[in-house]
């Protein structure tokens, strides 16, 4: 491996946490998009039932 390539791999090191966190954040974003509106609706009903205006 040349010195330039080694330096490149060192730079890639700083992106490792971002790359590792990406699938978890993507799964969370999917959950929010997929189930968010349903949870929103349910919460809305619950709030109307429990909270006085």
């Amino acid at each position, binding site marked *: 491996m040349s*010195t330039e390539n*080694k330096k490149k791999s*060192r730079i890639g*090191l*700083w992106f*490792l*946490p*971002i790359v*590792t*966190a990406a*699938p*978890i*954040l993507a799964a*969370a974003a999917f959950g929010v998009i997929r189930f968010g509106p349903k949870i*929103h609706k349910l*919460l*809305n009903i619950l*709030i*109307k*039932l*429990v*909270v*006085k*205006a």
Partner: protein
Amino acid sequence: MNRIITGETTKAECVCAWIAAFLLTVFLSATILGTVAVQMITSAGLHLNVAADDGMIEKQYREICENIDVMAKEYGFSAENVKATVTREELKEMNRKSAEFWTGLLTEGEGGAIPRWNIGAIQDIIYTAAEEKTLTEDAQTVIGDVREMIENTVFPLRETTVTFGSKMAKDMADIRGIIRSVRQMPLLGTLMSLACAGVIALLLGKDFFQSLKYYGTALGASGIVTLAGCIGLLALRSGGMLREANAGLADEFSALFGKLALGTGIVGILLVIAGYLLLFLFSRKKNAETAESET
């Protein structure tokens, strides 16, 4: 075989270490965000802290005074005399009782007695106004309306729904048992995280500096996920539909989410710093090794 003898990491060990690092990220993030959720549900101290917040008490006090002015004009009693009976200390005490009710409801499945406003002093003022024949309505109706207005400002929940809902939930499930299990979740997450860290240590025990890369990645990634959770909490702070229903209650939730977001944000930042510090140490060691092999 040579690799094992020389202490070099094999490809299979690297793959397993990466899987362990990813799982460590998942468990660590889940533990931190789970702890936040458990705090939100079960921490009596946090709820009492929010309930005793001076800014919130002041807001409630002003709202009550404004409502008393409106009611005094409508019903014909002395607004100043009634306002003099409503003190910030009493409001704080009722907020404390409301927080206790909440905590009891969320941890034991029953909140106990619904907090009530002591109407004694107000009653005397209204009866005096009734004797002076300045009231436009029956004294009992006026007293009831004033009491309801104050109680709704501090505790804006429908009693029947809350008591019926909590009773139904208690009949359907062992709330105490569930809460006890929920409280154990962060501990379980911590144990799983330690197990993953242990697996990395076992796989890369012979190359300590190599393991820094995996620990650094996992800590940094957990920090990023925790910070994303913090952003989520800050987004919930605005209240949205709760604000549409009741601005006062939305303010309480806003204060609660604000306190939780602050703690979560600090933990997230510390994790990112710790993660990148380990990666920096690993990088320095590797650079030194590279320079050494070149000379």
